[in-house]
């Protein structure tokens, strides 16, 4: 593929470029935007029902001091839902992508840290959380999943212009 591109820079590359930059790219951007919105919406809503559960999911990482456990456990799900809403209407997509990427990197860091320290927890990414049996930890899957979400955020960071967005409407 790479060699092919090198051989015919006038052939493959513009097709790829058109897909990313052209009108098709903006439709892809819309799909990416809505996918990331679904991720944040799901993650946030799943953590809102039981505040004590959300707090315990944070506490289980054994990273934050007790005084920050509840503020983070209570506030984070609402932040996630807010990001989801902003993504749905497409307002400030690049800024939301930056916040998303920072959050995801934080999560990946937290999960890696738990893994490295040998404590056994559920990441609590989509509700649940807290200590689990050693045999039930899924750190690698959780990190890979978050990396996938990070790719969505990266796309929007680099190509924030998407179809059917408040951003497009504002600049029109």
């Amino acid at each position, binding site marked *: 593929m790479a060699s092919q591109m090198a051989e015919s820079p006038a052939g493959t590359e513009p097709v790829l470029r058109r897909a990313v930059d052209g009108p098709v790219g903006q439709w892809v951007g819309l799909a990416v935007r809505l996918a990331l919105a679904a991720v944040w919406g799901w993650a946030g809503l799943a953590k*809102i029902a*039981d*505040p*004590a*559960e*959300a*707090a*315990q999911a944070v*506490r289980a990482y054994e990273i934050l001091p*007790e005084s920050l456990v*509840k*503020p983070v*456990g*209570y*506030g*984070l*799900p*609402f*932040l996630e*839902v*807010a*990001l989801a*809403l*902003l993504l749905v209407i497409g*307002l*400030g997509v690049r*800024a*939301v992508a930056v*916040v998303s990427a920072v959050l995801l990197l934080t999560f990946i860091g937290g999960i890696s840290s738990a893994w490295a320290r040998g404590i056994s927890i*559920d990441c609590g990414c989509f*509700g*649940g*959380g*807290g*200590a*689990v*049996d050693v045999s039930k930890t899924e750190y690698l899957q959780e990190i890979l999943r978050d990396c996938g979400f990070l790719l969505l955020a990266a796309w929007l960071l680099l190509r924030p212009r998407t179809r059917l967005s408040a*951003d497009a409407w*504002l*600049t029109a």
Partner: protein
Amino acid sequence: MSEKNREGKRSARERMLEERAADEARAKRNKKLGVGGVVAAVAAVAVVAGVVVQNQRSKPETPAAAPLGAIGDKKLMIPSGAANAPSVLTVYEDPRCPACGAFERSFAPTIDRLEDQGKLYVNYHIVSFIDRSLGGKGSKNGANALACAQDAGHFRDLHDVFYRNQPAETSDSFANKATLIKLSKQVNGLDTPAFESCVNDNKYGGWVSAVQQDFDKSSYKSTPTVLLNGTPVYPKNGDEPITAENLVKWVDAANQGKPLGTTGSGNESPAPTTTASEPNTPPSP
């Protein structure tokens, strides 16, 4: 002159164009900053709103109401056996946890006997975290029903019945209050209207949450957690595995030379009071 004039005209036009371009760039930048500001504001408002709303929604760590005879500074433990027995067994159990079921089916007869002999005072923490990991309400409803049974003086009996009839971890049949009430009929004298309304109205829901929050903050991470006089004995006490014989042996060793507790006075059965307020029932149509 004409040359100079033309130059002046052109530079004026250029200046105008430049200014317009600069204006447009500034407007665009302002718009971007404005959008960024809106995003930051929305995020900040969401976090603050979340903290405020969830603070209000969360149940207090010190429960407003606890079952009769509950002990501890926040009244989060249910005692069983003689309070002056020389040894204390502290048990953290979730009604839905299969390992707790296995523990109870193996050790409940021994523990009950040690209690009745005045050798052991058992403090139960009825936690409810399986509902979080598997979803459902069986832990919480089961724990509430046990609190209701404590009110009626039948905690130990219902506790033993629940664990003998524990469903598989993933089938959340304890979530069904009718199932809990049906099981309570196996305990003589427990199934009264007061007990049923206590179960159906989730009377001790706040207490159940407080017990779980206390467990969250403890250093214990799984159930059953079993401590004999503060030392973990499940699944092992040092190198010795817990068995019925070993448990009796450890208790006897700890109790050596100490007087036994006073038993036989219905120590775990607070007399049901007539003043116990009943939750409001909606008027029938």
